[in-house]
């Protein structure tokens, strides 16, 4: 597929997903959430140490999930290797 066609497909997919997301705003749960007082503080950039702490959350979350996935993939590969070399699997007639 040419890049131009790919761009059109991506654009259409983006528009459809955006419309779907906007439609979420009309759900009853959206209204009840709007009715609740927002407790979250957004605000501007923080100063000093807190400013750097902001980078820790994405780093920690991404690192933790990447590490866990690597662990699972490695364990699954090791398990598959062990199964392949198991004497039961290589026994004649199997």
């Amino acid at each position, binding site marked *: *597929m040419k*890049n131009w066609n*790919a*761009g059109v497909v*991506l654009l259409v*997919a*983006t528009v459809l*997903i*955006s419309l779907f*997301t*906007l439609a*979420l*705003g009309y759900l009853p*749960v*959206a*209204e009840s*959430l*709007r009715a*609740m*007082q*927002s407790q*979250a503080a*957004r*605000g*501007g*950039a*923080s100063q000093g140490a*807190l*400013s*750097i*702490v*902001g*980078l820790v*959350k*994405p*780093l920690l*979350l*991404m*690192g*933790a*999930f*990447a*590490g*866990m*996935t*690597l662990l699972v*993939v490695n364990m699954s590969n090791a398990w598959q290797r062990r199964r392949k070399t198991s004497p039961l699997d290589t026994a004649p007639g199997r």
Partner: protein
Amino acid sequence: MTAAVPPAESGARKVNQTRRNWLLDVALLIVFMLVSAPITTGITLHEWLGLIIFVPVLYHLLWHWKWVVGVFTQATRKLPGQTKFAKWFNLGLFVMIIVAGVSGLMMSEALLPALGWQVAPDNFWLTVHKVSATLMMFLIGVHLALHWRWVANQLRRKQSKGAS
């Protein structure tokens, strides 16, 4: 019909493509890290970076479009397990990026007002934005892990180049 490419030329092209992909992915990761830390950057920069990040995301997708078309045009049962997982997983990541972007726009405090469009603070969109952004961190962590062999190879290559 395509003209035959000499092996040396095709090898050089592959090296260039890998280098180009590496640079884009590093830039994408840095921008993503900054976008994910509004406390560090401040809301204004967070919103502008959130808009700008769509450019490298688009290029990332376009440069891997052959893979995308390949996995979505082949019958799912014919695909290897890991590719099958990557197909649906990456689709989920794409959806999550757009959900985070749209929900962020719906409660924009700096970007839209700068363009003359005022939006009121909205607890619903704030919740959707926070949940989708946290899910994105999880999905990008997994995405990185799934391509870790390639990342590690690139890092090793850069290190050996630096040493020599």
